[in-house]
């Protein structure tokens, strides 16, 4: 999360007396020391941490510095240009600029660039570039003209690309902009025409650029208040030809373009830019940090005394001429994340930094102005829910990073945190979307199921039960309670994943009779089992019993919840049992009935499985029956309507035991059969075969 710290004033003396403010702030060869060139005649060397000047040099009265002083990183000397053509080179020990080395050149200089790891480069107003040493060897050498008449250099910057300096400068001619890239390893100069697109009329007020491996990302702040990005290739495909590059909108409405003073823009890192200027036409000037990736305003600071519209950024410091004084604002940026960006929603404003009207406003990126703020609360919530949803879609589309699950977890907890604070905020769709990323678990967002339980959001609960691997038994049980108790009406409304439930609850009626006989085949015949008196009641009206057991006791949606969510959940008996005791008796009976129904469905076919995708296994069903009975036996025996159910359960357990013992008896025979089978496959002990090798 980017943040601006409390700034401090660097100079005690007023600066920027000239009409154009400061000429520049440049790094010196020592960290923490900066060369500040005043518009008039002075160059001051400041030590930022000490907030004091280390040295100051002035040119003679009548001379005027025309280009910011720079430090030659190779020699540690300083270079300044006065009166456009005169170079002065001095070192820390020199006192008087008049007495230091002087070289008069044949053409006017636009800028001197100095960068760590290369000799200083001199850019002439006509577009030619020379190395300093070559120039000093022959100061009066002829300097060619590169740019055409009336073309004026507006801005320039130098980069190191693969250990070689690359210089970019932008020129303007009749409202058209051109970018020139000068490479020094190959001494090629390529020219690009910047196409402004629809916003032809706008004037570019500030440039900044950062370099990637293959591109220079040139950002420009136009008079319409928007930031545009242009990718200028470093290695042109065809350097001879005139090429065109288009710019694309990066951020909209970051400043109001028609401020009295200029506006300025500088790149901080790959995702952040600093913008200087008034955010609204009437407001005071602000320095604001924007995240270009998420198009969010990260922080902002008002500069009430006005600025010169100039902004420099070195290391971790932003330099601004605030009023008459040079102010340093330290800038910090922790790793940014969507969670952080979202968090801005509820974080109160940090004291000291004052935000521009609201915060991000997802709207800004879509062209709305900030006016809609006063609209009513609920609309805002709905809106923000919707925006969060949209942003999430965008975010999820990005390839997952290694810490993807923690990021998702953070997002969920932020959303839940906000839900807690304002209960009407319940971004259900976003949450569902997040659950479906398959990376969440209960421990990562413990509040999620709690909230869903509170809201009786069965759909969300079902999803959670299916996706989370680590739901505590108490929560599983709470879900079960809700699933059993929720009214049929509200269930019908809910959108529930009905996966493979309808497959068999519909077909029940048709196959009823057949099933009955098959069940008997599986060893449930009462006569054979000599179940005696206990199942007399059942024998009396077998038809009734069959009907009762074979139709699904719950509506399909509830069945879906129970079958697809509860039965599949992981649990350990010890922890689940005490919670099961809390379920009301009639719900227990209902669930038992349903489980018994599932069991009968299971025993329909030879493989003992249910139809459909991911069916609960017979073991899962049996375990749940046992658990329920263990937990609630004393209650269930007392309920008259459960009596029939218990009887049939008892009968089927008994038959099961019989089957097992019978199977154990004939296991030996099975093995013998298997052996016979093997022997058949076995060859003779001796044979002569023909083998051909290829």
């Amino acid at each position: 999360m980017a943040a601006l710290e409390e700034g401090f004033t660097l100079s005690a003396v007023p600066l920027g007396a000239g009409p154009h403010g400061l000429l520049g702030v440049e790094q010196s060869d020592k960290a923490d020391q900066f060369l500040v060139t005043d518009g008039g005649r002075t160059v001051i060397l400041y030590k930022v941490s000490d907030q004091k000047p280390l040295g100051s040099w002035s040119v003679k009265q009548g001379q005027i510095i025309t280009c910011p002083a720079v430090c030659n990183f190779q020699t540690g000397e300083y270079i300044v240009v006065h009166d456009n053509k005169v170079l002065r080179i001095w070192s820390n020990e020199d006192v008087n600029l008049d007495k230091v080395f002087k070289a008069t050149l044949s053409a006017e200089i636009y800028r001197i660039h100095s960068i760590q790891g290369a000799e200083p480069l001199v850019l002439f107003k006509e577009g030619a570039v020379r190395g300093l040493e070559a120039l000093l060897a022959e100061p009066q050498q002829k300097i060619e003209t590169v740019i055409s008449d009336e073309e004026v250099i507006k801005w320039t910057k130098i980069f190191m690309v693969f250990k070689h300096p690359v210089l970019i400068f932008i020129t303007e001619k009749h409202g058209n902009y051109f970018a020139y890239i000068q490479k020094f390893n190959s001494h090629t100069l390529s020219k690009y025409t910047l196409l402004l697109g629809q916003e032809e009329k706008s004037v570019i007020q500030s440039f900044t650029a950062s370099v990637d491996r293959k591109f220079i990302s040139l950002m420009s702040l136009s008079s319409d208040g928007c930031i545009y990005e242009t990718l200028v290739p470093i290695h042109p495909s065809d350097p001879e030809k005139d090429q065109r590059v288009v710019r694309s909108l990066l951020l909209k409405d970051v400043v109001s373009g028609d401020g009295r003073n200029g506006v300025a823009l500088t790149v901080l890192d790959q995702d952040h830019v600093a913008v200087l200027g008034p955010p609204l036409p009437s407001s005071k000037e602000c320095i604001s940090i924007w995240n270009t990736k998420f198009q969010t305003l990260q922080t902002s600071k008002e500069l009430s005394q006005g600025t010169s519209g100039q902004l420099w950024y070195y290391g971790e410091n932003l330099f601004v001429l605030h009023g008459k004084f040079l102010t340093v604002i330290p800038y910090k940026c922790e790793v940014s994340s969507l969670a952080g960006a979202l968090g801005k929603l509820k974080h109160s404003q940090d004291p000291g930094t004052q935000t521009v009207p609201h915060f991000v406003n997802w709207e800004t990126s879509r062209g709305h102005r900030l006016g809609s703020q006063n609209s009513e609360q609920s609309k805002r919530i709905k809106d923000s829910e919707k925006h969060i949803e949209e942003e999430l879609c965008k975010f999820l589309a990005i390839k997952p990073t290694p810490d993807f699950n923690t990021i998702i977890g953070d997002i969920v907890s932020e959303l839940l945190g906000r839900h807690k604070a304002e209960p009407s905020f319940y971004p259900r769709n976003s949450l569902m979307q997040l659950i479906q990323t398959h990376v969440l678990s209960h421990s990562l967002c413990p509040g999620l199921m709690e909230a869903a339980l509170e809201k009786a959001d069965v759909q969300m609960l079902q999803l959670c039960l299916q996706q989370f691997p680590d739901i505590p038994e108490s929560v599983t049980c709470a879900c079960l309670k809700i699933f059993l108790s929720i009214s049929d009406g509200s269930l019908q409304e809910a959108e529930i994943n009905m996966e493979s439930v309808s497959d068999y609850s519909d077909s029940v009626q048709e196959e009823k009779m057949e099933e009955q006989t098959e069940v008997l085949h599986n060893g449930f015949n009462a006569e054979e089992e000599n179940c005696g008196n206990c199942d007399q009641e059942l024998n009396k009206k077998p038809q009734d019993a069959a009907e009762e057991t074979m139709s699904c006791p719950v509506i399909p949606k509830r069945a879906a919840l129970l079958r697809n969510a509860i039965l599949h959940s992981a649990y350990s008996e010890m922890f689940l049992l005490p919670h099961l005791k809390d379920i009301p008796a009639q719900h227990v009976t209902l669930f038992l009935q349903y489980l018994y129904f599932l069991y009968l469905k299971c025993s329909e076919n030879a493989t003992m499985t249910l139809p459909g995708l991911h069916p609960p296994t017979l073991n899962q069903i049996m375990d749940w029956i046992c658990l329920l009975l263990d937990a609630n036996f004393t209650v269930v025996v007392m309920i008259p309507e459960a009596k029939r159910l218990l009887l049939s359960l008892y009968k089927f357990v008994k038959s099961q035991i019989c089957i097992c013992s019978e199977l154990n008896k004939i296991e030996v025979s099975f093995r013998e059969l298997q052996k016979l089978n093997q022997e058949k496959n076995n060859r003779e002990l001796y044979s002569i075969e023909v083998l051909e090798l290829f």
Partner: protein
Amino acid sequence: MGEFKVHRVRFFNYIPSGIRCVAYNNQSNRLAVSRTDGTVEIYNLSANYFQEKFFPGHESRATEALCWAKGQRLFSAGLNGEIIEYDLQALNIKYAMDAFGGPIWSMAVSPHGSQLLVGCEDGSVKLFQITPDKIQFERNFDRQKSRILSLGWHPSGTHVAAGSIDYISVFDVKSGSAVHKMLVDRQYMGVSKRKCIIWGVAFLSDGTVISVDSAGKVQFWDSATGTLVKNHLIANADVQSIAVSDQEDSFVVGTAEGTVFHFQLVSVTSNSSEKQWVRTKPFQHHTHDVRAVAHSPTALISGGTDTHLVIRPLMEKVEVKNYDAALRKITFPHRRLISCSKKRQLLLFQFTHHLELWRLGSTVATGKNGDTLPLSRDADHLLHLKTKGPENIICSCISPCGSWIAYSTTSRFFLYRLNYEHDNISLQRVSKMPAFLRSALQILFSEDSTKLFVASNQGSLHVIRLLEGSFKHLHTFQPQSGTVESMCLLAVSPDGNWLASSGTSAGVHVYNIKHLKLHCTVPSYNFPVTALAIAPNTNNLVIAHSDQQVFEYSIPDKQYTEWSRTIQKQGFHYLWLQRDTPITHISFHPKRPMHILLHDAYMFCIIDKSLPLPNDKTLLYNPLPPTKESDVIRRRTAHAFKISKIYKPLLFMDLLDERTLVAVERPLDDIIAQLPPPIKKKKFGT
């Protein structure tokens, strides 16, 4: 490549003995394995798990314990009450010493490797000092009331845990007195069993004693207080073995149900320092009792009644994918148990205590690839030769002409003359063997059956001329001065002029038989030799190593052949190098000098040196016959290695004549069928 009639033999009724003990030596990365017949085998885990040495067993010498001491000395103890030290150079028993405590059930070497502790039938625990060339009795610990079945040293060497019946004793080594006696619950799932036998104990440096017992429990005891700390019930049957890793962060137990459980010391929660033992992985690689387990730094090693030695690498400890990353199941010995008389089409099978001679059948029919031909004569069992005495057979051989059989035990060498009269066969022992012919590690007859070569366990090679019914000692090649390494492999050239011999580590020596002198020594190679053979006519020596490299060395030129250099330069196919059983036999085609036949347990291969070598992109094993596709493709894809995987597990394969092969298979099912039934597990219900 050619069509062969293959005599597919499955009547070699060989049953490997069950594994009784395993002992892992960390310094040399070697594994000692003892079997129920008393055989002790040494596996070199660094050399692709090759079984490089073995000590033949003895009927009365059931090994109950096996351990390595300092200086890579190997000791075993058994129910005959003797402690035995093995000579790993000469491959014989250095000495046997009676511990005078009745049958010995357990033995443990002190952590420093200088003391030996044995647990005896009479309840005594005896401490021996290991001296440079022997062991010396030092004293008895307090006598217990029943046999000591397991022993475990504390890593500091101050205390010892001894598992007995129904209780574990903790001894103080200095005083020899029992400090604690920890009673083990006899109850097994609510039922009181007769006795609870402590099959294994391990002593950890924090004072924890881990015991495994016949009630299926793994128990953790605090040796300072003598109290039970934790109890894991892991099996319905005995837990018979335990081994702890050197770091004491994991251990392995083996149960009578054939399951091996891995226990690991894991943190209670992800970042707490509190750790507890957790049963992490069960492995079911065995069908029968896992009698012995070992824990190498990277693998769990287990063996038992089902005769397999299983090496299960711990994937989290294995860094590179190589031999060590694959599960190994070693069932068959890495040496030949079968020899063959080509002339008479006889096979001699070597068992622990007897030899069997079989005559192969014949057929007159012909057929195409894959056909089984009708037999005109079935295979005959001609002879069953039982050894005299309790010692196991070390090696045996039948002469190529079929009229001589020789075999050797640890103390005696036997030579028989066979006479064939029509269908009758008579056997006549050649008596009066000279004194120096006492014990042989390898026996070989020359191609014309006139000479017998015997590698004795002192490193010397004897050459004997065979005459009708008698013999004459011609010469003895003495080992190179200073070495006592025994020769395990022999090969003689078909013209009878050259004899090659190889030990376990040094290079291959080639002797000139005519002049009876050493001809040359093949440069030694890092991996042990698994098979040797000399090609006819060219006298090229083909050597297979345990890392699956094959070299060809020209004996007359005393240098590697051009082909060998080429294949070394290009490298073998990666699938060839990944095979996990060693080549155990090499032979040659009499009419096709470019062919080399070799086999391991799962394939046999004919290398045609005239064809291009396969590279890693070509298909190494192509079982499908070429269809009617254009010959161009066939020629293009043809490479030197012609592999067949039809016969497996393949114990022996040789060429009887130009068009006939003999393959001896031993299907695993047949072995399992003859093992005692495993513990019955209920399949249905609970």
